[in-house]
């Protein structure tokens, strides 16, 4: 019975590249990885948005209406629904003039119990120290 912890760090804004979305879909797949593992073995995924990557978290993204594409917002909500640890860097929100009111903080409408955590970069550093492997997007 062992646990491998992965840290997904999203550094870039959404849409121009597919990467931020792939970060979330891969992190979400930690929920189904057990089929490949022995009983009790698990993989956890923490997700942190830093730098201009915090722009992924803006509310009211109309990607589906405009480009028939599921939004990064939807994927963040799915991550919360699946109890992933989703962190957003406070210093970067401040720098970009954004607050908790501007970003996806919960997915209550889907019944998610966890919320987005706005944290100082030092908390994200701590996560990076604790995980087994890092994946930067």
């Amino acid at each position, binding site marked *: 019975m062992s646990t491998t912890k992965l840290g997904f760090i999203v550094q870039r804004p959404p*849409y*121009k590249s597919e990467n931020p979305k792939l970060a979330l879909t891969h992190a979400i797949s930690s929920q189904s990885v057990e089929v490949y593992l022995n009983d009790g073995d698990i993989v956890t995924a923490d997700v942190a948005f830093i730098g*201009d990557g915090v*722009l992924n978290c*803006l509310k009211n*993204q109309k990607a589906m*209406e*405009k480009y028939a594409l599921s939004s990064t917002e939807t994927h963040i909500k799915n991550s919360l629904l699946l109890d992933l640890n989703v962190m957003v860097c406070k210093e970067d929100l401040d*720098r970009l*003039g954004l607050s908790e009111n501007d970003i996806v903080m919960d997915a209550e409408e889907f019944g998610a119990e966890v919320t987005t955590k706005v944290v100082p970069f030092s908390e994200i550093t701590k996560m990076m120290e604790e995980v087994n492997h890092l994946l930067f997007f």
Partner: protein
Amino acid sequence: MKLAVFVSDYKLNVDTLDRLKPEKLGIILVENGVYHATIKENGTPSSLLKKNANFYVLMDDLETRGLGSSDINNNIKMISYGDIVDLIFNEYEKTAWL
């Protein structure tokens, strides 16, 4: 020349725009270029907006990213894809996607 420049990134990795001095310059913010229209880093609007140019921002790309008309600087015109077509054909002679 009358030049329409498309800016599709927030962090540009080229300095070409600073060096172009056409007679008439239009800057069309698309894709992640739309953040220049809305974000004020540490309270300061994007330095790109200081250029002597006509500024446009593609509405679809703003809204895709969760941004809207209330967020944009007032010297920037919100436009549609159809407006881009008209700008290219009627207002400018050449285009540059940086």
